[in-house]
């Protein structure tokens, strides 16, 4: 048999057929789990305090460069799970993603942090002894704010800065958010 003028044998056809079937199986898996990759936002799905809470500090920090509308893929949730009252976890420095965590609050954004935040919008407010963090993808509806009791620092995770170009992040699947306390322990 010839394909595109080139001879293709039985084994070649069989290999392509097997690959096609494997691709269908993977695609079925992707379709079945599409909600799991599309639903969560950076800050988690629930919040323990409303955005307009009277206790929220009026001084809010909003960061996030503008971004083109082409990269509207949702981001996966970071290691911080939505629960405002649980105990702190391990130190950020002991986590495997420590090397790709860039501090975005407090302080001014460094060059790497600014690039890591491409396509993301993160708002941080002080609220009592914690932080009220709103995080999401620019161009998509913002998720409800999440309160991190004892929160002191906010980091954005960006596994690969190579997918950030100009003002667009072409793969938000490797982005996340981490909040730590003053001892650099990851807050849930």
């Amino acid at each position: 048999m010839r394909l595109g003028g080139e001879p293709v044998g039985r084994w070649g056809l069989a290999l392509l057929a097997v690959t096609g079937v494997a691709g269908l199986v993977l695609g079925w898996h992707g379709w079945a789990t599409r909600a799991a990759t599309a639903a969560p936002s950076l800050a988690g799905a629930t919040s323990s305090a409303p955005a307009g809470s009277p206790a929220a500090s009026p001084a809010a920090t909003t960061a996030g460069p503008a971004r083109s509308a082409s990269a509207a893929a949702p981001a996966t949730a970071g290691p911080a799970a939505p629960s405002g009252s649980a105990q702190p976890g391990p130190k950020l420095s002991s986590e495997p993603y420590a090397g790709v965590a860039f501090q975005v609050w407090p302080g001014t954004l460094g060059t790497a942090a600014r690039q890591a935040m491409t396509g993301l919008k993160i708002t941080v407010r002080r609220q009592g002894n914690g932080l009220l963090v709103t995080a999401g993808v620019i161009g998509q509806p913002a998720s409800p704010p999440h309160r991190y009791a004892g929160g002191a620092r906010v980091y954005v995770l960006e596994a690969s800065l190579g997918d950030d170009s100009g003002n667009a992040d072409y793969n938000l699947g490797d982005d996340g958010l981490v909040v730590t306390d003053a001892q650099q322990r990851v807050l849930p």
Partner: protein
Amino acid sequence: MSQPRSAPPAVGPPAASGSDAWARASALAGDWAPVAGRILLALVLAWFGYHELVRPGLWTGYVPVVSPASSLAIVAVLVHGWLLLVLAVALAAGVATRLAALLAAVLLAEIVISLTISGGLSDLTLRDAGVLGLAITLTGVSQRRLVLRR
């Protein structure tokens, strides 16, 4: 009296030796460089194809015109990922490589054009343009090494 001289060793001129080595290297590159290009392009396609298939929701932002949150965008990513995966295996195994490279070039051209329209000329766009160039090159190369002939 003249001193007897020993005969010079019977070797060719250095220029000829270098020329032979260069010719051998060229022949080697001619045989194997297309294989390297084919397999590296296959790696790129396989990586993207696999990830588009298993996590299509992360790639819907690339789908032009269609809303990223729509099921149609998910389906488009899945179809795209499936095509990339099949083309990757065809290229890696050397099965209908010129046709596979041509189809890959069409897909990559669509990506480059789409990215250019949506985001302008960026580093990512130009990187994909380079991969497109590799695919186009492979459409004109007859594969002789590491191909599945049977």
